[in-house]
């Protein structure tokens, strides 16, 4: 596989995640599809890092650093997001985005 193939796969993954966010009404599934989109971005970053080889024959670690930070932030984001979803469920007994219409609880 060359760079374009990886980018195509990554783009398809992003499109699947995006379609999931639009199609599904369950907030947890939407959250998972967001993770898919984040990972699509990670895949293209790692592919570019492999593509841009330095003079010493090493991949460009700047791209991998970014992926490392994205994964770390995603972990924090998921923890907080799921806590918000749990407190939402406690208040409303639902995880459907269509049932959550008022802005104040």
């Amino acid at each position, binding site marked *: 596989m060359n760079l374009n193939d990886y980018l195509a796969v990554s783009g398809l993954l992003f499109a699947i995640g995006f379609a999931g966010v639009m199609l599904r009404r369950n907030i947890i599934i939407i959250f998972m599809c967001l993770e898919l989109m984040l990972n699509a971005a990670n895949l293209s970053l790692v592919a570019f890092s492999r593509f841009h080889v330095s003079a010493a024959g090493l991949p460009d670690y700047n791209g991998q650093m970014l992926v490392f930070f994205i994964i770390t*932030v995603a972990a924090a984001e998921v*923890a907080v997001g799921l806590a918000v979803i749990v407190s939402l469920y406690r208040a409303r007994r639902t995880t459907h985005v269509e049932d959550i219409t008022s802005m104040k609880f």
Partner: protein
Amino acid sequence: MSSLLPWLFSAIMLGFACAVVLNRNPVASALSLVVSFLALAGLYVSLNAFFIGVIQVLVYAGAIMVLFLFIIMLLDLKAEERRTLNTTATLGGLLVAAIFVCELFSVLRHFHKGSLPFPPLAAGPLDDVRGVGTMLFSNYNLPFQVIGALILVATVGVVVLSKRELK
């Protein structure tokens, strides 16, 4: 043989990503996502990013998805009953995704540099933990510290959010 494996991993990843979107049962969705992430880790390894691949398994498949499964099980979400789909949102979503894919392929067709094989790496085993580590503690030291503070804040935030008594 080894040129076949990335294609295999890509197929698994995309197939299970579709399963995430199409499954009605949230637990099945979450497990499909785990398989998808494992295949993605395989793709990272095929790109010689061993460290990122392992971190992907450790953090995404081993920690984040366990959290998802936990919440799904604790909230006891049953398989979604057949709701009428919001037609505008569905059509709009699929349309935008389709346009995005078309655009992507047309851009990639004109990106000729990307269809060349990857440039060769230095011979011998690649010590990429050392490479990533050196960069993390030199060029990216400040972001690293900030991430630490961020995780601390997130921890405190989660504890506050899950306390039942606090209003």
